[in-house]
């Protein structure tokens, strides 16, 4: 393996590490920082792949990711956290060691699931598609095991990170128009959930999503 592929592997490992970190981190600001780091590793990885494969549109992708996921989204989340005055730790539904074990099981599962793609791919980045799917699954696990609205959204965004990573590792990135569209969607989603948090807080006086279980009982 040449040096660029090794760097890519290390970045993929770091992305996976941040995904697990998001799963087990209790403090809100910690989650925010981990999410920003994940975005940073992702954009560096995209840049490296762009350099190795000589795909210049990946540079644009990389800068876009940097702007959106490392700067804009964490800034929006930070403003929300300050305005909503959330300072406490967040509770989890399942305890942390069990969550970690489930996470490991998901990583192994996604490794097996992406085996056919790994065999068919001829790209430099083919080994990282398992990490990408694992990040998606871990984001999903995070959404399920958390009770706080903000952390559920961070799980959702982490899942989108995984999808972006999957696009880069399987196919050297989707066409630019699609990438732009996806980025736009995420930005709109960010605004929407920002507004949402305020609505939830106004109506329920807390951001604990377990409070929002009334529709289930009244069936």
């Amino acid at each position, binding site marked *: 393996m040449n040096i660029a592929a090794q760097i890519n592997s290390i970045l993929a490992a770091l992305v996976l590490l941040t995904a697990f970190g998001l799963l087990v981190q209790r403090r809100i600001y910690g989650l925010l920082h981990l999410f920003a780091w994940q975005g940073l590793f992702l954009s560096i990885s995209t840049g490296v792949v762009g350099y190795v494969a000589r*795909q210049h549109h990946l540079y644009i992708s990389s800068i876009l990711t940097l702007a959106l996921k490392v700067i804009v989204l964490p800034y929006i989340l930070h403003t929300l956290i300050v305005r909503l005055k959330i300072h406490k730790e967040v509770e989890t539904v399942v305890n942390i060691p069990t969550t970690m074990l489930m996470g490991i099981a998901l990583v192994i599962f996604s490794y097996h*699931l992406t085996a*056919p*793609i790994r065999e*068919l*791919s001829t790209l430099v980045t083919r080994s990282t598609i398992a990490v990408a*799917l694992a990040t*998606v699954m871990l984001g*999903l696990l995070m*959404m399920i095991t958390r009770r706080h*609205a903000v952390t*559920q959204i961070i799980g*959702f965004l982490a*899942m*989108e990170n995984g*999808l972006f990573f*999957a*696009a880069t590792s*399987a*196919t*050297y990135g*989707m*066409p*630019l*128009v*699609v990438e732009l*569209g*996806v980025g*736009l*969607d995420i930005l*709109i*989603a960010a605004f*929407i*959930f920002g*507004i*949402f948090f305020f*609505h*939830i807080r*106004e*109506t*329920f006086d807390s951001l604990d*999503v377990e409070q*929002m*279980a*009334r*529709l289930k009982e*009244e*069936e």
Partner: protein
Amino acid sequence: MTLIILLGVSFFAAIVLAFVGDRRFAPEINILGSAATFIASVVLAVHVYYEGPMIAGRNFFFVDAFNVYLTVLTAFVSMTTAIFSRRYMRREREHGRVSHWGMRFYHAMFQLFIFAMLLALLTNNIGVLWIAMELATLSTVLLVSLYRTPRAIEAAWKYFILCGVGIAQALFGTVLLYFAAEKVLGEGGEALLWTNLIQVSGQLEPTVLRLAFVFLMVGYGTKVGLVPLHNWLPDAHSEGPTPISAVLSGLLLNIALYALVRCKVLVDLSTGTNMAGNMMMGFGLLSILVASFSLLRRKDIKRLFAYSSIEHMGIATFAFGLGGPIATFGALLHMLVHSLTKSSIFFTVGHASQMHGTQEMSKIKGLIKGNPLVGWGLVFGVMAIVGMPPFGVFTSEFLILTATMKDAPLLAPLLLLGLGVAFAALFRRVQPMISGAVPSNQKPVKASHIPIILHMVLVLIIGIYMPNFLSEWFHTAVGLLK
């Protein structure tokens, strides 16, 4: 040119209504915008009918018989819903259930939603299809929570999270599809174009497409409301304002199914097996059974009809999965008549709940005596939706049943079971609501005549005598979906 008008009007109207949405003439602008979109869609349809499939905008748009029919349907229902929304939302605004900003937001998002749906239907690029579906979801999320009650916010949150997760899976499926396409078509935007994909579908790698379809099924299936991914649907369709319930039930589900069927065609041609069809049949049948049994215990009128939507989408999915000319014809017809009937039902239900100030069925009574239009509209709507002749739903369900008995006879009893249970459940619920004396808590309401009558008449006509152009159209679409 037509395409520009088609998409541009709704987009432009959205921007305008964001500013003037609360003024007196805002609903009229809404109606006018939707009407212009409808006329443009009809022009497009006529063009495609005579000249065949059309590609425009440097391969960005692709219009064939399948999606142009859905385009006309979408534009039509949104026009009639805009007419309905005029009277309905005016009363809601008067009663203070919606604020000033709420009205502006509502009107703007309504048009943006239509834009997103039309974009999803007309685009040739599978990636842009995904983007438009996501945009359609996002534009309606905050509309579901428009009334700001705890239940509405909970419904909107569930909708956002569950559909967001689902559609993320669909994105992964799209990435895998692109991966397979790239090998054959080379990199760049060319590889995501439907027209190119359909030509090289035999060369796409089957294992990858199989995996991709699983993710696409989960993703777009969540948006269609297939069991077990349906949890968001009853909440979202019942808590938002009624016009939104109508378009969500009547239109968005159709478009998600359209996306799913397009992917199924690709996968079928590539793998040569029936895997996609079997999956769709399985999910469809499960949805029919679960939804029809769930109808028995519902207490809220809108949730009742939301579950009915799940059931009918299940029928359509099942039929598309079954494949073959009869079933596909039935499925296409079913999408049309379900859309018209369900939105009409939601119009009447909306007025009924406005009259009584509640959505609980035990508190709604005496509709026929109180407001004959609403009462009889509901009666005919329910008769249509359970599949009684001479309405159009009977025709489509009959066709699907025939095809099932021919191709998958063991599943026919299950299908009949689902349809029968739904029949019984709906009639049982609706009967006390329409008959009897007028209760004390009922207030008069100025109902919206045109949409309800128009929809029911159309469904009746399609049931009795299907116009030639319509059946020819369907035959062309069936040919495309082989």
